[in-house]
């Protein structure tokens, strides 16, 4: 991990209401370059809302999100125009969805899925795009001769790896992941986690990983936020928090893990 003076992301009092209902409330945390932050909590606790609000897919009702951009320096996401947000999301940010079918374009080939971000950034040279596609397919361990195949023909694990490649092709600094291992069998999960750890180390990537799987949290994340009813109830270093949970809900969560 490379140490820097400034965090990558600083969230202050972020709140999202859906009418009267709370999506997430008073979320504050910092994320540092190269850090993997886990967010756990039962379903309906506002984890996905938090990710969507963070990436401005949903506009927060209140709160400030500061991001230290490589190109623009310190930016307040709330002050950016929609086109600037979109630009940021496809250059310095990435979003890996739980269901790869939402994060991928299922009607175009794997190669086109990986190349899309490059083309959106104005790369107009087919040969160069193709080269990047090959490189990233190799990096996420998909046979390069599958480049022209439709994602429909891929297995669940391959789809998730393809989605990661599609996001990483522009070398983002921050990737948000919503249940990246959801629905995958255990051996595929393990390979995916290995891959993510390698990518984090290689590119000094910061990850925010939403999951309800404590094993994923233990293996992947450095720091952990526990959410309940839209609020953070406990936060700290992952190992510390899992070994010595203070909040009753965290205790319940940790004790609910089935030991094999």
């Amino acid at each position: 991990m490379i140490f820097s003076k400034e965090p990558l992301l600083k969230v202050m009092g972020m709140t999202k209401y859906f009418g009267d209902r709370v999506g997430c409330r008073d979320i504050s945390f910092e994320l540092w370059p190269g850090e993997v932050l886990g967010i756990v909590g039962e379903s309906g606790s506002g984890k996905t809302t938090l990710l969507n609000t963070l990436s401005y897919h949903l506009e927060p009702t209140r709160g400030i999100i500061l991001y230290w951009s490589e190109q623009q320096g310190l930016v307040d996401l709330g002050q950016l125009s929609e086109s600037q947000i979109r630009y940021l999301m496809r250059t310095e940010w990435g979003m890996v969805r739980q269901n790869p079918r939402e994060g991928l374009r299922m009607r175009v080939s794997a190669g086109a899925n990986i190349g899309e971000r490059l083309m959106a950034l104005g790369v107009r040279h087919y040969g160069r795009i193709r080269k990047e596609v090959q490189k990233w397919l190799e990096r996420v361990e998909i046979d390069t001769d599958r480049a022209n195949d439709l994602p429909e023909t891929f297995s669940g694990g391959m789809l998730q790896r393809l989605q990661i490649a599609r996001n990483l092709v522009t070398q983002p600094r921050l990737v948000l992941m919503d249940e990246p291992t959801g629905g995958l069998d255990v051996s595929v999960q393990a390979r995916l986690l290995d891959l993510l750890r390698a990518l984090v180390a290689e590119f000094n990537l910061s990850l925010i990983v939403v999951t309800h799987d404590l094993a994923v949290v233990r293996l992947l994340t450095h720091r952990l936020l526990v959410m309940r009813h839209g609020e953070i109830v406990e936060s700290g270093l992952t190992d510390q928090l899992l070994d010595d949970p203070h909040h009753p809900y965290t205790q319940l969560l940790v004790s609910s893990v089935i030991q094999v």
Partner: protein
Amino acid sequence: MRGPLKLQPKMKSKSVPLQEGYNFAYLDEGTKRMIRRTLLKAIAIPGHQIPFGSREMPLPLGWGTGGIQITAALIGPDDILKVIDQGADDTTNAISIKKLFVKTTGVQITERTEKATLIQTRHRIPETPLKEGQVIIYQVPIPEPLRFLEPREPETRKMHALADYGLMYVKLYEDISTHGRIATAFMYPVLVHHRYIASPSPIPRFDNPKMDRMPALQLFGAGREKRIYAIPPYTTVKSLDFEDYPFEIEKWDQQCALCGSRESYLDEIIKDDQGGRLFVCSDTDYCQQRREKGKNASPSEVVAMKAVRRKKGDETT
């Protein structure tokens, strides 16, 4: 195109009588004004799709109701109308539209591209270069060039607003990786005035270069989708491509079996059951004019002409 009409124009077509009881050019004046206002807006923002209150027409959707409504909104008693379908003046769609306007306006109809003031077209731009003062009206089935890649209308509108056009290149990328070249043969997307990506309607990509800096006004009407867009005269229109796979038009190693043209867009016609085939101009007016100007037909050309006539079921050409 001219002011409100007081008098019914003089009958010019001998075969079809002017239909009583209809307003000039079928649509009521209010609707025509609404369409003309939309057209002004469309011309002011080249390539940008403007919604309009598309009306029910006496021809079914898919038969060029968008183009027909634009023509109806613009046509005046002095206009000379040409209607083509796939380049031909004498196919069903073109004939039906011409009949509608002859019955409701009595305007003069022509097949000569250079004589027409209004040209309504489906799937082609005439080979004869258009001039200043002419208006070409395209019938458009799907005005949204991003539609097949992004089915959500709010999303495509946003993409246009933000000029967020990476997705369009995904389509071209797919073509090259599947076919080794950009295989999109028609509805080849264009960038209008360096800003909006627009669909040129289903014309062959052969016609795309004709749109660039065309002296005539180009109007596009989609009746079912309720959209109008426009390209004003002398506007830059660029066909999208990659640096290492530049835009190219179709080429034939054949020439037109009737007029011998090597420059025009050719249709392939099956001659017999033995797999015999020949190529002829898709633009019937262009082909006809070349034949009139040129030498007498050779025996082989006579055979070819007969085959084409049989194919098109037309005795008079």
